[in-house]
């Protein structure tokens, strides 16, 4: 996969037909719809947002670009706890998703047999209802007087999580744990699907070959399966972490005052306080932070393919 020089020699180029001029433009025509889409719905809003972040003013007086970069610093020094919390919660949710999702994806890819399609549907099925409804369902499941919290209390699990600061008292809702669980649940399919695609592509004969070379199952997994599934792991973690870091619905519905994430701050700034520059600056800081982390992550993970 890494050595390019081993490629077979080039097939001789047919000399009779010089490439036609019209054909040359085809790739650009094919790109056009996508590029237009990106310009209108990504690049332009981005420029607009960047502009908003360096404006000052008010609704009555209008907003003017004054290159007021201090907004960035002010926003960061004021709301760094929420930033940190967002990255922390998103990170925790991503790790949980990986731990829960990998075995399931493995099962679907290699062991599910004729149940494969059914399990896949079960993984995707929650997506048939809205994000909001799914999150609200958790409020019923985790209600203080509900069976789940009752069982956790009987088993003294909540004493431990409470001591760790993940929950408070004998409840789960309106605590960090509930928010992380909600994030994990809502983004789990984004982890499972790329993992499955990666795993499914692995030739099972490689497992047999590893066995023939006296590798124990655990070694086979460590040396063969897992490295080959890295593209899935990387894209799965990205697809989970990036939206989770910007999510505000889970923190809003399942959390409390001490679990607010940066998405909530942006929402409040934009809709309630009408401080558009701060909201835009916060969005940019979040974007930059995620971009930086993702860049480092992709470099470190040493995988070339993303899916």
């Amino acid at each position, binding site marked *: 996969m890494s050595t*390019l*020089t*081993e*490629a*077979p*020699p*080039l097939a001789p*180029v047919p000399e009779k037909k010089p*490439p036609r001029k019209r*054909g*040359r433009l085809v*790739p650009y025509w094919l790109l056009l719809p996508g590029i237009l889409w990106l310009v209108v719905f*990504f*690049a332009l809003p*981005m*420029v*607009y947002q*960047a*502009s908003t972040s*360096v*404006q000052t003013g*008010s*609704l*009555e007086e*209008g907003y*003017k*670009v004054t*290159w007021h970069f201090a907004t960035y610093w002010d926003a960061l020094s004021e*709301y760094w706890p*929420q930033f940190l919390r967002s990255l922390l919660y998103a990170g925790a949710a991503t790790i949980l998703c990986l731990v829960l999702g990998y075995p399931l994806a493995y099962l679907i890819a290699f062991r599910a047999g004729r149940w494969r399609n059914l399990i896949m549907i079960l993984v995707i099925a929650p997506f048939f209802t809205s994000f909001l409804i799914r999150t*609200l369902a958790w*409020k*019923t499941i985790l*209600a*203080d*007087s*509900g069976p789940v919290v009752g069982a956790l209390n009987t088993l003294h699990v909540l004493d431990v999580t409470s001591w760790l600061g993940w929950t*408070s*008292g004998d*409840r789960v809702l*309106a605590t960090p744990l509930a928010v992380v669980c909600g994030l994990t649940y809502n983004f789990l399919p984004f982890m499972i699907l790329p993992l499955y695609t990666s795993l499914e592509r692995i030739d099972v004969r490689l497992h047999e070959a590893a066995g023939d070379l006296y590798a124990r199952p655990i070694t086979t997994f460590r040396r063969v399966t897992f490295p080959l599934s890295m593209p899935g792991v990387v894209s799965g973690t990205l697809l989970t972490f990036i939206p989770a870091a910007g999510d505000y619905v889970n923190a809003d*519905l399942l*959390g*409390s*005052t001490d679990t*607010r994430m940066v998405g*909530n701050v942006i929402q*409040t*700034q934009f*809709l*309630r*306080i009408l*401080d558009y520059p701060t909201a835009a600056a916060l969005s940019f800081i979040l974007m930059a932070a995620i*971009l930086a982390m993702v*860049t480092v992550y*992709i470099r470190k993970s040493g*995988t*070339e*393919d*993303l899916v």
Partner: protein
Amino acid sequence: MEQYEPDRLSSAQVAAMRRSLRNGRASLTRRSMLRASAGGALAVGGMGALSACGIPAAGNTKGGVSAEDHSAEEKTVNFSNWTEYMDLDESEKHHPTLDQFKKRTGITVKYTEDINDNVEFFGKIKPQLAAGQDTGRDIIVLTDWLAARLIRLGWVQKLDASNLPHAYANLSAQFRDPDWDPGRAYSYVFQGISTVIAYNKKALDGEEVKSISDMLDNPKLKGKIGFLSEMRDSIGMTLLDMGKDPANFTADDYDAAVARIQKAVDGGQIRRFTGNDYTSDLSSGDFAACIAWAGDVVQLKADSPDIDFVIPDSGYLTSTDNFLIPNKARHKTNAERLIDYYYEPKPAAELAAYINYVTPVDGVKPELEKIDPDAANNPLIIPDQAMAAKSHAFRSLSSKEETAFEEKFAKLTGA
């Protein structure tokens, strides 16, 4: 498929292409992604473009900008309202009061339930109104503080009193003269909303809640108290509890109320601040007591015997949802006729019987008695003297105050 000008590529590149073709997909690689994002960053770097887009000042045209009124030739009116805020017949498809309006006037009401949240709806219509464009809506219904902001910004039209005879005659006294729209030049009340304390008997477990102080101070209710994320409701009720008048308070009073709630947040007394979703917390018993809107409580009470409400001795807050006609609306006269229609006792009674909010129309009681005698005697729908005496309004805020207060309140709720 022919290879694309293969003679210009190095053998390594062709090998890579082949590999990718053999795998049946053009793989997205780390390098191509980094390259693409770098390109994106460069494009954004065109700083010159940034200064081009400011947001213009809100046109301060007092009296609003009217478009040409097409009421006469287009027999229609576009009415945007909140969800579940209009009477429905058994089939749940028709709104009887709107149908009767059409029968009588020949004006078709295009009724849309597209308002879920004041701040979100403001975000939605702001760009059009700020740019002086038609929003496609002839009537919108907004809560008083947002209605005040729209009037302040000059984004709504002055109403023509000659089209509103019933409204003028029947608007009940307590809603006649809000400080943000004296004499109702721009707005008329659609429904009044009472903010009260609701509780779940089961979850209270024998404790008693009669005031905001009971909610904030009883250690047995720790983590079982809910406040509203609407600043005016939560602060207003707390101000009343502290003996202050929400219609006339100072910035210091405000800070004192925030400090009082902050203490309860820090001590874990308040579980969370909610929007409309407090109803599920209250029904499940996760909230033992919370600040609530009376219209919801009437509904919840019908569903569950455990839920009830209490009006604190210190009083309660009344706010209003108001009809407004945005700038450039095409059917202003039709809109005014519809507003006036809802001030006739009969349609007002039909509406009140269905939605359980405070009716702003005098003379509804005899009509409502014919439809639903219980509702007619419910002080939450038609306030009696004792009830009306305890009602307080939250004063209007200047735009500077509003920003400062909302910021402080946002900190309280965790930003």
